Each structure stands twice: as structure tokens, then as C-alpha cells.
């Protein structure tokens, strides 16, 4: 029972992290119909940047987190500007190959800069509340670390904020307009390229938060963007790609499925579960579990 409860908590935490990454995939796809393979790498850079800010520059955690978000947002915008914007009118295959190249380049850049050695956020520089021994005891002997509470709450707050941003603000309206029809939006006076840049910034900043969250619980490696990125992409597909609410729910489902699959089937197949769900959804129901609000093709 205690194990079961802890698995549920682990699943929810992982799900919240996946949801934050998945939103980045789905927002970009909704507007420019591009699977931004390099989004996972942005997430990985988020973790490394925060780690460097804390360990090398001695910046406190609560400053390093927003700073990492800002820097990753810049990185995402730069990526769009350099690699994707020139290909806006090129065949979709070209943009997809560029995205793969970008992912490859960034992942190996990280390996060059930080080496393949797994790193951890050193416990002495983190706020003490994040240490794994600080936990609430739950009935049945399970424990709930404050760290996990923080991750779930932060993910939730960011999700709600994003949702409000998209449905209540002017820029959100512009994003929805671009997702529906970029050409018409442009004719109505919306600066499409600027909206796309902002989409990349928001997606990348949320990815950076997810990266820091993973850093708090696990290790940071150059390949984490690839592995977690694929699972998060599966979440985006599950929720119906282009559908932001769907991506959030998809993230939770993938997170729970992965944790339970690893716990009760085999830990070697952790990632395989996400792949299987992803393939099944694409083949059986390409519009995802929750349909899709934007996006144009199956």
C-alpha cells in the first residue's frame, strides 16, 4: 500500500514534468506544424544552466530558476530565428530534418561543454526544504517529500497561468489566431513571426523549469533531453497534438503509466511504455484522446 501510494506520487511528479515539456512541443506544433525535436535539448539546457548558475556562479536557487527560464527562452527564440524561420515556406520535411539536426547538435554541444558524466544539484546549495529527508509522512508508511509537493504545485501553477495567458490575454488571442490560420492572422495585422518567437520563448521557459525539476530529483545528463523529450512528446501526441490542455493530461497519464510499468512490469521497459502508447495513439486515433483544437493534418 505504501509502495502503491509512493508510485502514484512519483507518477504525478513525473507527469507534471512531462506536461511542462509537452506543452512546448504542442504549442509550436499548433502554430507552425513542426515537431521541434530540439525541444528536449532546450529542457536539458535548462537543467544545466541552472546547475551552472548555482554551482559555478553561486547564485541562490530561487534566482537561478527564473534566470535559467529567461536564458532558455532566449535560446529557444534564437533557435527559431536561426534555423526554423528561414524554412517557413520550405517543404515540411526540410524543417523536420533541421529540427533533428538541431537536436543532434545541441545534445553533443552539451556533451562537449559538460561531459557525459551525470551531475546532481549539490545538496548543500539547495534550499534545505528540497532535501529528500524532509518529507510528510502519509498514512500507511509512505512519505511525500516537500520537493515533490513543490514540483507538483509549481507545475500546476504554471499550467493554469499558461492557460489563462492563452485564453485571456491579447498575445494569447494572437497565438490562437496564428494556430487557426497564420496567413489570415498576418493579414489582420498580427505579426506572425513575433508570435511564433513568443511561443518558442514560453515553451522553452517552461521546458527549463521542467529541467530544473528533474535535476532536483534525478541526475542531469546530456541525453536526458532525448529520453525525457520523447516521453513528453508521447504525452503531447496522446493529448492530441496542438491541444494544450490535452498535453497536460497526456503528461500525467504517461507519467503514471511509466512509473507503474517500471514498477510492476520491468524497469528496462520504462521508456518503451511511452513509445508503445505513442505508436498506438498515432495508428489508432491520430487526433489524440482529447481531439485537437488546432493542427491541420492527421
Amino acid at each position, binding site marked *: 500500500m505504501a509502495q502503491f501510494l509512493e508510485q502514484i506520487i512519483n507518477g504525478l511528479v513525473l507527469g507534471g514534468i512531462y506536461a511542462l515539456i509537452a506543452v512546448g512541443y504542442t504549442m509550436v506544433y499548433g502554430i507552425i506544424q513542426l515537431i521541434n525535436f530540439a525541444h528536449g535539448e532546450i529542457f536539458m539546457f535548462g537543467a544545466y544552466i541552472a546547475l551552472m548558475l548555482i554551482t559555478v556562479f553561486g547564485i541562490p536557487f530561487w534566482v537561478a530558476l527564473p534566470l535559467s527560464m529567461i536564458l532558455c527562452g532566449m535560446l529557444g527564440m534564437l533557435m527559431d530565428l536561426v534555423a526554423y524561420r528561414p524554412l517557413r515556406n520550405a517543404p515540411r520535411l526540410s524543417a523536420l530534418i533541421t529540427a533533428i539536426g538541431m537536436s543532434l547538435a545541441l545534445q553533443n554541444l552539451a556533451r562537449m561543454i559538460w561531459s557525459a558524466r551525470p551531475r546532481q544539484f549539490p545538496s548543500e546549495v539547495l534550499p534545505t526544504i528540497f532535501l529528500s529527508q524532509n518529507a510528510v509522512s502519509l498514512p500507511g508508511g509512505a512519505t511525500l517529500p516537500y520537493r515533490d509537493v513543490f514540483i507538483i504545485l509549481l507545475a500546476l501553477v504554471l499550467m493554469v497561468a499558461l492557460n489563462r495567458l492563452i485564453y485571456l490575454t491579447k498575445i494569447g488571442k494572437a497565438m490562437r489566431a496564428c494556430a487557426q490560420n497564420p496567413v489570415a492572422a498576418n493579414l489582420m495585422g498580427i505579426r506572425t513571426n513575433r508570435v511564433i518567437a513568443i511561443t518558442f520563448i514560453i515553451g522553452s521557459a517552461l521546458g527549463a523549469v521542467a529541467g530544473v525539476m528533474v535535476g532536483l530529483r534525478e541526475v542531469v545528463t546530456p541525453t536526458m533531453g532525448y529520453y525525457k523529450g520523447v516521453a513528453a512528446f508521447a504525452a503531447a501526441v496522446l493529448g492530441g497534438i496542438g491541444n494544450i490542455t490535452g498535453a497536460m493530461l497526456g503528461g500525467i497519464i504517461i507519467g503514471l503509466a511509466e512509473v507503474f510499468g517500471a514498477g510492476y512490469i520491468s524497469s528496462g521497459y520504462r521508456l518503451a511504455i511511452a513509445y508503445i502508447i505513442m505508436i498506438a495513439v498515432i*495508428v489508432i486515433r491520430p487526433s489524440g484522446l482529447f481531439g485537437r483544437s488546432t493542427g491541420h493534418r492527421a
Partner: protein
Amino acid sequence: MKDRLTPKNIIFALFVCFLPLLMYGIDAIALFLSHQDIYLSLPSGDYMLRIIVRAYLYMLLAIGLNIVCGFTGLLDLGYVGFYLIGGYTAGLLMARLGVSYWIALPLAVLNGALWGLLRGAPTLRLTGDYFAIVTFGFAELLFRIVKNEQWLIGGPNGLVRDIPPPAILGVVFNQNWHNYYHILILLTLVVFIAYRLQHSRVGRAWVAIREDEQAAESMGIDVSRYKALAFAVSAAIGGLGGGFVAQFQVNISAPFFEFWESILILCMVVLGGMGSIRGAMIGAAILGSLGEVLRPGFIIPYQFGGSRYLIFGIILILLMRFRPGGLTLKKA
């Protein structure tokens, strides 16, 4: 194929034959310069021969991937899956059941084709990104299976050991120059088949599907059938490469077949120009034998190990930006 013996084709054939030699020279210089503090002699010919065999192997794989990516215009991110199937089919048959290589190799090809069809069936309807994702997931699943299922593979992390070399009437082909002629014959065969297909009704149907699927269908092309054929032929070539590599490497293990290998082959096809057999071969010759040049210690300092893929990534980005048709095709 009316233009069978035009000067252009003869020059190209010579080029393909001598490109690995050229690369051999570059690699030899690279190795010489990078290791000169250790020993002042050229690396052994056998080592270089292995690099050339690998370059030819990559040419073969690039031609196979080119059939799906270049001819039918679908982005296959899981080509390494068929390479894996071929490798493990041949490897397990030979190492475990003692089947002769000359039987195991065709079986590897057949098994590759079979899996090409199995994977193709649910993906016939899919286009663009979704096709790419499913193929990627397929190859990753296969990779996980060989890594985890030790009862099947029988070694840690999917290792099959001591695959015997092929033999005819007691003559054992275990020298590197045997492998050189072996892969050259297989490559010639594959090039021939690919050229014949490209210039046949089938090849024209594939290109028609690439250009506009609906138009092709309304012209009476059975899109599903031709796509399935493309998947099967492409996968069979992957299986052939895998079957060869099983005996070439003697031991094969899961890390041989990681996702990045798919991307490397894709990079070769894109570099040469998608849809062109010559392009695929040139791309494979360049990237497949540049490995030694890009190895840490020569152009790239030692502390930046593993940056080969960084360069491949940048090549992909720059090509798509400035020359989407690849090196050999005219600017699209």
C-alpha cells in the same frame, strides 16, 4: 536505363571505387598526424581496409534508406531497426543454431522485408511527421527489446558473441580483404537493383506518390501497394546490411543499433541529395569515412571528444538552409 555506359556513369563508377581510397589517404594522414607522438608509422592496412568496408556498408544502407526517404518522400527515422533485425537474425542463426552464412544472409534479408511490411501496414495512411514518429518508436522498441530480453539474445545488453565467419568448401572467409570484396559485390547488387527500380514503372510510381499522393491515386497508381513495396525493398536492404555486419563484426550488441545510427544514415542521404542513388553513395562515402578525420585528437582537440555528431547536426541544419537538394542535385 538507356544511359548505361555514358561517360558520366563511367566516371561516377570510377569515382565511387576510388573515393574510399581517397578517404583512406585522408584518414591515413589524419591518423598519422594525430598519433605521431605515439608512433611514427602509418596505421596498418587492415585497419584502413575495415574503414573502407564500413564506408561501403554505409553506402548500401544509405541506398536502402533512400528508397523510402528519397523516392517515396517519407521521413524514416527508424531505418536502423531493419539493420538490427538483419544483424540479429543472421547473428543468432549462425552463432546459436550453426546455420551457414549463405543461408542466414538471405533469411536476414527476408526477415527485414517481412518487418518492413509489418511496420508498413499500420503506417500506410500516415504522412510526414507522424510517419517519422512511428518509425522512430518502432526502432527504439526493437532496441529496448534486444537490450532487455536476455533469454533471447543470451548476453548482457544484447550481445551476440563469436559469430563464425562464412565459408565455402572449407575455405574460411575471415580476412579483411575477403570482407572488402564481399561488401563490394553486395553493394554492386544493391546499386543495380536500386537503379533498375528507379528507372522502372515502380520507381516512377514512387516519385509520383512523393510529388502528390492524391494525384498519383487518381492516375490509377495503387498507392498502398507501391508504398508497401518501397517499405519492403528498403527494409530488405537494411536486413542485408545487418546480415553482413553480423559476420563482419563477429560480436554484435545493442549499442550498434542506437537511434543516432539512423540519423547518421539519414544525414548521408540528405548530404548527397534525397532521391539520388549517386547522392546517397557520395554522402555515405564522405560521412562514413570521415570518422577518422573527425576523431578527437586531429582537427578536434581531445577534450572535445564525441563532437562528431555535433558536426553532423550542423551539416544537417546548414544543408537544409542553403542547399536542400543536397550536394549532387541542383538547388531546389
